[in-house]
């Protein structure tokens, strides 16, 4: 990042007090949920979830929702965790806790729109990584989920200016980044990085946040960044975007990140039917919609 931009953003953060703090429960749960299946400590996960009343309620609610047909009602957190499966518990933990941190960000992108895109990108990142046999799939979920977190940071730090960014992007059907650069002088990639540093996220995830719109030229988490780049793009193209029409045509195969992944995983990349993968994404739309609806419905959501 340009040192000037970094200084300016940090100054702004200190002027305004601070940015949201990563809740400690999320850190401990995140570690537990990312453990390999053999090391998974279900008791600890159940314990951590039980500490947080709204999280516990959310788990029970989803476990008893129409998404899962079962004969008996799920009553304990343990039952809920077992019924939902670790992956879905993780989805609920993040999607229930993170939006709360940013409920103060008004006048920005609609929260439901933002989290639909974030959850979609997380799921697609993970799925694409699975297909290509990229390592560290668990981390990819988090990288996808957080890659656009700078959008929320922007609406906290520069509410008026960011409102103009959104209006102009929507009116001109242009990608958000381009308009951010024009009006703010930086993009959500950079402001997201500032938050990632405050939160002390793992370096590769922080890099994915900073570089997910232009992933070439740095090395550490390049593969992860490329996967997130493509997942973000695919979501924007399949109705899980920023809530407006982006009048663009994409040839994914000609995008540099795809080249990077193809070089590293030639066999799996050659076998990936991208057209079919794209159609398959539509089922995430339904799943993500259900998840977001349940987070933002009947007052138990983040507001």
């Amino acid at each position, binding site marked *: 990042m340009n040192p000037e931009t970094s200084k300016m953003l940090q100054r702004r953060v200190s002027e305004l007090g601070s940015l949201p703090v990563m809740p400690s429960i999320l850190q401990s749960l995140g570690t537990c949920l990312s453990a390999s299946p053999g090391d998974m400590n279900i008791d600890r996960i159940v314990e951590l979830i039980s500490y947080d009343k709204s999280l516990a309620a959310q788990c029970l609610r989803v476990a008893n929702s129409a998404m899962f*047909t079962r004969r008996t009602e799920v009553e304990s957190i343990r039952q809920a965790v077992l019924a939902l499966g670790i992956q879905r518990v993780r989805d609920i933990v993040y999607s229930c806790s993170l939006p709360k941190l940013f409920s103060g960000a008004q006048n920005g992108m609609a929260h439901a729109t933002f989290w639909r895109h974030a959850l979609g990108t997380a799921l697609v990142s993970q799925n694409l990584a699975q297909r290509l046999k990229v390592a560290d799939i668990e981390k990819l979920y988090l990288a996808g989920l957080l890659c656009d977190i700078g959008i929320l940071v922007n609406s906290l730090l520069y509410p008026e200016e960011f409102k103009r960014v959104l209006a102009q992007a929507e009116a001109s*059907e242009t990608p958000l980044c381009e308009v951010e650069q024009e009006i703010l002088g930086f993009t959500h990639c950079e402001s997201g990085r500032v938050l990632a540093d405050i939160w002390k996220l793992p370096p590769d995830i922080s890099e994915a946040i900073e570089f997910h719109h232009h992933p070439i030229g740095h090395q550490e988490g390049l593969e992860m960044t490329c996967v997130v780049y493509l997942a973000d*793009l*695919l979501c*924007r*193209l*399949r*109705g*899980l*975007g920023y809530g407006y*029409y*982006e*009048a*663009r*045509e*994409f*040839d*994914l*195969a*000609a*995008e*540099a990140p795809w080249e990077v992944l193809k070089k590293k995983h030639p066999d799996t990349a050659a076998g990936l*039917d*991208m*057209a*079919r993968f*794209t*159609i*398959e*994404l*539509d*089922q*995430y*739309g*339904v799943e993500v*919609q*259900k998840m977001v*609806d349940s987070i933002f419905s009947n007052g138990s959501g983040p507001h």
Partner: protein
Amino acid sequence: MSTNTVVVPNQGATDADLADPALLKLRDLIYSISGIFHAENKFYLLALRSRRRMKELGSNTFADYFERLTARANRDVEMRNLLNEITIGETYFFRGQPTIDAVSKIIFPKIVALPGKQAVKRVRVWSAGCSTGEESYTLSILFLEQIAPKFKDWKLEIVATDLNDDSLVKCREGLYAEYSVRNLSPQMRDKYFTQEGKSYRIKDVVRAPIKFDRLNLQDQTKMLFMKGFDLVFCANVLIYFDSAAKKRTVEHFYNGLVPGGHFFLGECETLFGIYDQFRLVHFPGSTGYYKPLPGEDAGGKK
């Protein structure tokens, strides 16, 4: 992926139907034969349509029906019946909004900006397998609405072909039931149709750019003459061809397009494993295929 918030109900397909592993096998069989892919959120459609055929045959389980489609003597006939069931009755004006948006917001403006186009000022479209004409007339209306006012002197030319004579009669007649025009606002309907009783007849201004013709896509000689198109549409037609015929047909489409031209299949069809000269391109909500301009072949297209 639809952005609306309504979750589609299963509409008669049971949960047991949707969870039946044989349905997955059926999905993959249809995909390998026709290129039509049902994502999980479309399983209820697949189940319903298969059930309709199964009822006819007295087949009770998807596993049994799968066997009829793969192992029995008349499997080809039944596969054709199933594909008919899958693609039937789905045509109406302004169907497939994402593709329509891509054409009007992205592709038409791009064609108009091509340097070689300035001298001719003409956009040429081929609707291959035009059925009863809704797609062609939709494109004509789209051009009149979106392009003609902004780009004066530009002309549209649509060649709409089908093998079926009855369909072509309907195309030329241009008379449609209320169902077909339900996606149009009353203003648009009045602007481009004349009401005749309960039906709507297309006006001459929409008709003028379209030439309807009978063409067999397997007629190798005639196909050679289909040239110079900016856009080719061929929805739910290739599914009836074997893989050699598919490849041959798509190759004709490729050769028929000018460099920089686009090709669209049906919403759920793909070209994967059929033909690899095109580039798959993504538009918001839809995918299409692109024939690169000279010099774009090796490098990245931006």
